[in-house]
């Protein structure tokens, strides 16, 4: 037998019992050639192009699923940041573009399309300003469109004017989608150091240096790592790191295989595999449970940040060894609403916003899917974004804020979206004011780290 009995059973156990799946195969489509003076022609070009490349995406991904016995949870599409090719548009026209993206996504049978985005870390063009203004309307009038705005980078610093604008945009988005627990905010990410090849929606976009078309894959598999750690029992942390690496190595290899096969079937180039551990609300598919299995009583206990740092680093090391095409975020995600263990820690009062912020300094992204009271001040939200961006630019890593000031809700309430977005308890936010600082505006200069030349 070319494979050991145990090896085969291990793979079966991962896919059938421990929720190992490919979280997403995301087709990145460039829309840079779709601009036209006439907005109707622009819309038609966008629609045609997405359909031309994406029509078979879901079907072909499903074929690969059954061929390899590994399920692919999501099939998605990312596009060029909309503000770039369509810079001449005004807010109304951008909303029209959002609607056509929504329609195209529905037509090809995907749940989300991402890239309603702007990159304004250093400054804003008129088109970018219009796009940002249009976000609350675009997100409330569409179902499948996801938006992101990059407001800071290690090379440029933090654009505080954009941060302030995003505070307003988030609040207005929450209000515009109040009938659905402010779901618009779950589709809106504010980034620092955004990556161009991230396959994970809502923050995905098809970066300007990307090719015409590409297929990126995001793996998942917290359940597999959790089981491996539990099985390892009482070993020291060096040995535990080995256990995590061995597991991640295997799932990265499988992830790359699946990505390459889907790309091959579509006849398009394969881009990257993002080796992020992305939790889901399913029981056992949780980063919080991994941290607890590593030894902290609950997420939020002293030691949590160190445990997360080690987990994140082990994931990266194993992924790099397993594939030469590692990209995207690649680490551990710590969303609250999408992780049952995180939700429980918040409810038990063990996990605060401040501790989460500390954890984002060592995880792969940032404050993710966190619900806060609806009456939180715009300047406070801007302050949260600025803090998170500062962690990102100083440490030369991606950070993000996906925060939901749930309209009309207060501490003790819940927002509940069902499905992969899950449900989140409203968390406490300090009410002492950030206004004096954030409203100074301008730009926080690029840090020392930017001067590496």
């Amino acid at each position, binding site marked *: 037998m070319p494979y050991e009995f145990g090896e085969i059973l291990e793979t079966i156990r991962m896919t059938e019992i421990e929720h190992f799946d490919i979280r997403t195969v995301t087709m990145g489509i460039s829309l840079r050639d779709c601009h036209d003076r006439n907005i109707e022609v622009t819309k038609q070009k966008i629609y045609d192009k997405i359909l031309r490349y994406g029509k078979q995406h879901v079907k072909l991904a499903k074929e690969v699923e059954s*061929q390899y*016995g590994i399920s692919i949870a999501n099939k998605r599409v990312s596009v060029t940041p909309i503000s770039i090719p369509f810079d001449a548009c005004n807010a109304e026209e951008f909303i029209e573009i959002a609607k056509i993206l929504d329609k195209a996504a529905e037509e090809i049978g995907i749940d989300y399309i991402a890239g309603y985005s702007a990159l304004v870390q250093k400054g804003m063009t008129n088109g970018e300003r219009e796009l940002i203004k249009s976000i609350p309307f675009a997100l409330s009038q569409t179902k499948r469109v996801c938006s992101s705005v990059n407001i800071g980078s290690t090379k440029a610093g933090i654009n505080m004017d954009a941060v302030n604008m995003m505070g307003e945009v988030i609040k207005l988005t929450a209000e515009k989608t109040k009938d659905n627990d402010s779901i618009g905010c779950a589709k809106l990410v504010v980034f620092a150091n955004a990556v161009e090849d991230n396959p994970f929606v809502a923050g995905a976009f098809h970066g300007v240096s990307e090719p015409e078309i590409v297929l990126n894959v995001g793996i998942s598999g917290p359940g597999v790592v959790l089981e491996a750690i539990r099985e390892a029992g009482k070993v020291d942390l060096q040995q535990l790191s080995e256990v995590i690496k061995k597991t991640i190595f295997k799932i990265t290899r499988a992830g790359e*295989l699946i990505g390459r096969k889907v790309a091959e079937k579509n006849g398009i180039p394969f881009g990257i595999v993002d080796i992020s551990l992305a939790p889901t609300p399913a029981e056992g598919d949780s980063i919080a449970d991994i941290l607890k299995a590593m030894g902290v009583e609950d997420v939020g206990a002293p030691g949590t940040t160190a445990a997360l740092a080690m987990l994140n680093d082990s994931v990266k090391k194993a992924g790099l060894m397993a594939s030469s095409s590692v990209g995207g975020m690649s680490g551990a995600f710590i969303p609250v609403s999408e992780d049952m263990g995180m939700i429980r820690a918040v409810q038990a009062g063990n996990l605060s916003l401040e501790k989460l912020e500390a954890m984002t300094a060592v995880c792969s992204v940032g404050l993710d899917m966190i619900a806060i009271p609806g009456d939180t001040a715009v300047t406070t939200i801007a302050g949260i974004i600025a803090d998170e961006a500062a962690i990102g630019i100083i440490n030369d890593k991606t950070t993000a804020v996906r925060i939901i000031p749930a309209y009309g809700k207060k501490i003790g309430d819940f927002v509940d979206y069902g499905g992969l977005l899950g449900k989140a308890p409203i968390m406490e936010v300090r009410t002492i004011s950030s206004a004096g600082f954030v409203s100074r505006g301008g730009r926080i200069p690029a840090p020392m780290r930017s001067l590496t030349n």
Partner: protein
Amino acid sequence: MKLSEEEIRKITFEAISELGDKATPEAVKELVRRRVESMGGDYKLEKNDVSSGRVILTSFGLNHPGIVAGVTKALGDANCDIQDLSQKILGDFFTMIMVVDISASQKDLKEIQEEMNKIAELLKIKIYLQHEDVFRYMHRI
């Protein structure tokens, strides 16, 4: 045989000018086959993109007579070649793993999977069929 880009372009233009509006997938396939053969090449259309044509079949369940017979008969009927077989019984529990070459089969992987699902239901066991590559990628460097 490997075609150069120039040759592929030539065949494409011929197909366009000859078939025009009447092009169907079958007609194009037929025309390409004729062209490639006339160039002295061997035309083989891949039945599917399974690289080695081998799949791993894993089955589990409570042990009872007829499991191996049921599974192997269906594979035999579908013209699948069993290249390796390993079986273990732990208590009442039965596990069997096979390496099966399906490249000569008239059915593709999906059809065989559907067939196996029916048998699994009949025998009250679980059967998984996965392409060999996934094991090669995960367990071999």
